[in-house]
């Protein structure tokens, strides 16, 4: 069945995304991993909309796309901010606050 393949792909993308967020130390790579997670959600929603034969899922996916764009805009601005102050975007170096 076609839709099941999409769901499998989405699950794999989600796992890769989660792994990236946990394992990557470069802020931009983490942002890209988060994008993978969000896009796996979009795939899921569209595939389920096909299976359930209604448009709710597609509408939901449009909302997710729009808001993900806003989120990444803020995220890249923040990465730029830490790059200006530290000349590095490695998350390991963000360790002034501890305890």
């Amino acid at each position, binding site marked *: 069945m076609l839709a099941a393949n999409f769901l499998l792909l989405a699950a794999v993308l989600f796992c890769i995304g989660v792994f990236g967020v946990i394992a990557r130390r470069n802020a931009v790579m983490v942002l890209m991993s*988060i994008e993978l997670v969000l896009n796996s959600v979009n795939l899921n929603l569209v595939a389920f909309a096909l299976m359930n034969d209604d448009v*709710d899922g597609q*509408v939901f996916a449009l909302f*997710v796309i729009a808001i993900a764009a806003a989120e990444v805009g*803020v995220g890249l601005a923040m990465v730029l901010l830490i790059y200006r102050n530290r000349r590095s975007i490695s998350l390991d170096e963000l360790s002034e606050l*501890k305890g």
Partner: protein
Amino acid sequence: MIGMISSLLAQADWSSPPIDWHAIAPELILVIGINVVLLIDLNLAESKKWMIATLTGIVMLLAFIPVVTLGLELDGVPRELFDGRYVIDEYALVLKALFLLVGYVVVLMSQNALEDGGYYQGEFYVLMLCSILGMVMMASSRDLISIFVALELLSIPGYMMAAWKKRSSVSNEAGVKYYLMGVFASGIMLFGMSYLYGATGTTALTGEEGLGALLTDGSLSGLEVIGIVFVLAGFAFKISAVPFHSWAPDTYEGAPTPVTAFFSVASKAAGFTALMTLVFLAFPNASDVYGPMLWVLAALTMTVGNVLALRQTNIVRMLAYSSISQGGFILMPLAYAGDVDAGGSALNAVVVYLLVYAFMNLGAFAVVIAVSRKTQSGEISSFGGLFNYAPGLAVAMTVFMASLAGIPPLGGWFAKFNAFKAVLDADTTSAYVLACIAAVNTVISAAYYFRVLRTVWVDDVPDGNTAPINPPSPIIAALGITVIGTIAVGVYPRLVAGFGNLSDLAGTVPLLG
């Protein structure tokens, strides 16, 4: 092309849904207010930027008016918009009032901090209004899509507010950590939502074809279980429940203190609002899944938060861990939301706890802001001898710390009492175990709250500087509101005891016995 669209439109028999303008008046006033504040800020000279704070306060108070008139007009009949997916019931109105009040107090607290620091005042208040708008929407959302949109509307401005001190690397770090954790959490939550939608074919929470009616114990598919767990885990990040709390202390310490107060009260209350809506409307009959999960989260959150708070020397960091542990107490009744006996008192306990917690925690942060204006330090030891030179602040701090510890007759006592009552109403072994864990934690928490009080009342002034503190009038106003709120609820609990009745929440599904 245009011809094609118009022929498509002609085919579709579409008419705009009737809109109850009075019911969405609070949101509309906030939207108009955001635009007005933004436009006025563009044309305002730098020396007059203080007016923006006043204007923001007025917008919140204006938005408060329809909340009150709706409350008077409602009379037990909820007003439903958009096919029952946006509902104004008494539950939503109480929480809307809470968010607007918290927003107003945070404006009072942040006014001087922003002026002194020379930060971007206009933009700050616009973002804060956006965040409040998201919270106000969250209280009424009864659909997965609108819950998601409200969550992002309240979170995205928050990420920017955490990193507000642009040149401070600590504030940047706070912002980035909050952002990465927040976005990752919403990704996980969305993944759960997509599975819930896929398994049930709907995004609405209530109604006969809603999630609440379709998700029942015993007939849950694997997709549905994963969906419920992921959605709850996503919101557990938002309320900084252990083990999803790692961002909270760093973000709270690094962000500007008024923003920290905003996060630890308003953001957290919004997360709990979403959790309550989901647990009571979407998953009430799936308690086999969320019950044990929330039980473990609540027990871990209150214990780990408390134990880590014990060893903090920085007051903001201590308040951060204290707010994590308070989150555990708020979460505790939700674990029994699906219980026939305890469900009603659980909703009431969470709403009352959120109200009381807002007053006492905001108050504690207001004292910290007032004192650190003089001492320029966040260490607990810098509060030494506060009573000698600022008796008013010392007394206020005593009220808030004692209330957080749950000492009668202050508000925190009534909130804790309600939470315990809800759990014990469930009358099961696991409920008694959870209540015992909570009781032990109440005692542990008293240790670090009273250590602050000992420093304030007994210790010597660390640097011998006993010049009195004259807090600016907005902070005095914030302190006044929070002290009165904290004491009033404790002395006269009936004031809030009626809030959060299960019958006020429109669309609840009858629980399986």
